[in-house]
């Protein structure tokens, strides 16, 4: 973990308020693994904003984000050559394909970020990779060529059908498995809006497919000291473990670790 004033190498406006920024931070770039995130100071906003690492290129890392509120909007207005204050790499629970034979990745919106990194990082791994990437419409499905290149099968899903299948990404996933039933060695990795995650988890658990999910929560420190970012834990050993810290035990966790009922009530 390092705090660094990183110089911005490039800023790309991808359209529809989505941005891609590359920043030079050799230490973070060197240690980054899929699932890791950084915590970025965003102008006069107080708390740092957590963003997944999307890619690593030499001594730079890339982030892919949507300008939502004050913090990410400030970030979106940066220019190449300016500096940003970054803390990273953060997170201990990471995407880990282990001995999976077939990895099914399900991304919703900017939830693509850590999964994209997974695909790039594990390009040469033995597992078969199938991506389901959902977004509102064709304008918000990014990096299409790269994604097709990095996967064995790649499905784009849009709510309005303007690209790929029409509908929600979780419906598409379900449909896929109706045709090609689950196999031994399947592993689902997912990141996206909570409504989507909820569906993916229920599906995975009902089909007994292991499921790694990258979650979000409000974070204070990003480093495990404030206990703000917690997620309800399934079967805690004692009261002090009823919640786990997403920043240090996640952001990627096995879906089994989450007390689903509490978590989905909460979000």
């Amino acid at each position, binding site marked *: *973990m*390092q*705090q660094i004033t990183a110089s911005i190498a490039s800023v790309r406006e991808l359209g529809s308020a989505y941005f891609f920024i590359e920043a030079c931070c050799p230490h973070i770039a060197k240690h980054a693994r899929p699932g890791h995130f950084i915590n970025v*100071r965003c102008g006069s*906003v*107080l*708390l*740092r904003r957590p963003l997944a690492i999307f890619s690593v290129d030499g001594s730079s890392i890339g982030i892919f984000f949507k300008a939502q509120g004050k913090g990410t909007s400030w970030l979106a207005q940066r220019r190449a050559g300016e500096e940003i204050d970054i*803390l990273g790499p953060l997170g201990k629970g990471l995407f880990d394909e282990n001995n999976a034979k077939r990895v099914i990745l399900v991304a919703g919106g900017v939830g693509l970020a850590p999964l994209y990194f997974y695909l790039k990082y594990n390009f040469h791994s033995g597992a078969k990779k199938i991506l389901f990437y959902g977004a509102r419409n064709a304008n918000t499905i990014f990096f299409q060529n790269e994604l097709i290149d990095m996967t064995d099968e790649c499905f784009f899903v849009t709510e309005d059908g303007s690209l790929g299948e029409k509908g929600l990404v979780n419906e598409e996933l379900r449909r896929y498995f109706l045709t090609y039933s689950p196999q031994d060695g399947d592993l689902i990795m997912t990141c996206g809006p909570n409504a989507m995650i909820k569906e993916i988890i229920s599906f995975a658990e009902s089909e007994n497919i292991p499921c790694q999910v990258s979650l979000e*929560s*409000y*974070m*204070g*420190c*990003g*480093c*495990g*000291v*404030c*206990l*703000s*970012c*917690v*997620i*309800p834990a399934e079967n*805690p050993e*004692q*009261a*002090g*473990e*009823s*919640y786990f810290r997403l920043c*240090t035990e996640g952001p990627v966790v096995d879906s089994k670790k989450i007390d689903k009922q*509490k978590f989905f009530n*909460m979000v």
Partner: protein
Amino acid sequence: MHFSDDPRLRVDKGKLRLKNPVISASGTFGYGIEMQDIAHPEYYGAIALKGITVKPRAGNPPPRIVEVSGGIINSVGLQNDGIYRFVEEKVMPLKRYRTAIIANINGTTADDYFFITDKLNENASVDYIEINVSCPNVKEGGVAFGKNPKAVAHIVKGVRAKTNIPLMLKLTPQVTDIGEIIRAAQDNGIDIISLINTYPAIAIDINTRKPLLGNIRGGFSGPPVKPMAINLVWEARSATDLPIIGMGGISSWQDAVEFLLAGADAIAVGTWHFVEPDIAAKINEGLCNYMDKEQFSTLAEISGYTWRQYNE
């Protein structure tokens, strides 16, 4: 030599003896070692560990933190593993660093405080005990005790009877007369006053019409509370000669100096850890430079300087 070890920064007043005046505020720096890559424990004069209770506590439902009005509201609610695992798992790993260790103790009954003190006293592994009677995020005890001078007197007296470890009292700002609470504690053997804890606060999302925190109410901290905290330090200084640890909204060495001038003998940083994890080192460096520039040779000359102009 690192600024944090500059001998001019030593604090030596009553029972408060620190290598430098910068303390990590309880609950904002975990158990002291999590961030050591960027915020080394030895930058600190002392580290106040996350509040503990007798039994493990789940804490409050998330969301537990929200950013509003330039500060944050938190409602962590004292999530911790309880006293039994505390010394072995939380204190020991920190022991090998040259910094003082403060255990922040909490209870829903007075007996809880006594019980924890007994345990801490047995193995004498911490340097200070901070009696937290100001947590706004628990249903029983917590700030309810800290608002009541009789409860404070009772708890301090009982804890004092159990140990010779120097005792701090962590005060809530949400009281009519902070002097009254301080006197109740002083009469019963407290050694050091530590203030402020967070202000009770609520934020509501006008679209969902629900509170932003899972627990409705939380505690407000960060830069916005500073001018109120300075006032309370000034009032505390007017009420007692005991050493005072000032905190609330400190985000720079300049803020630290302001607390010292108002009457603090040491200061603690809370929320700002989340923004600048290396803030302790920066404060110590800034203090050394300020002392050079203003020709102060000891920290004690700065402590209460402004307060004395109007009160002596």
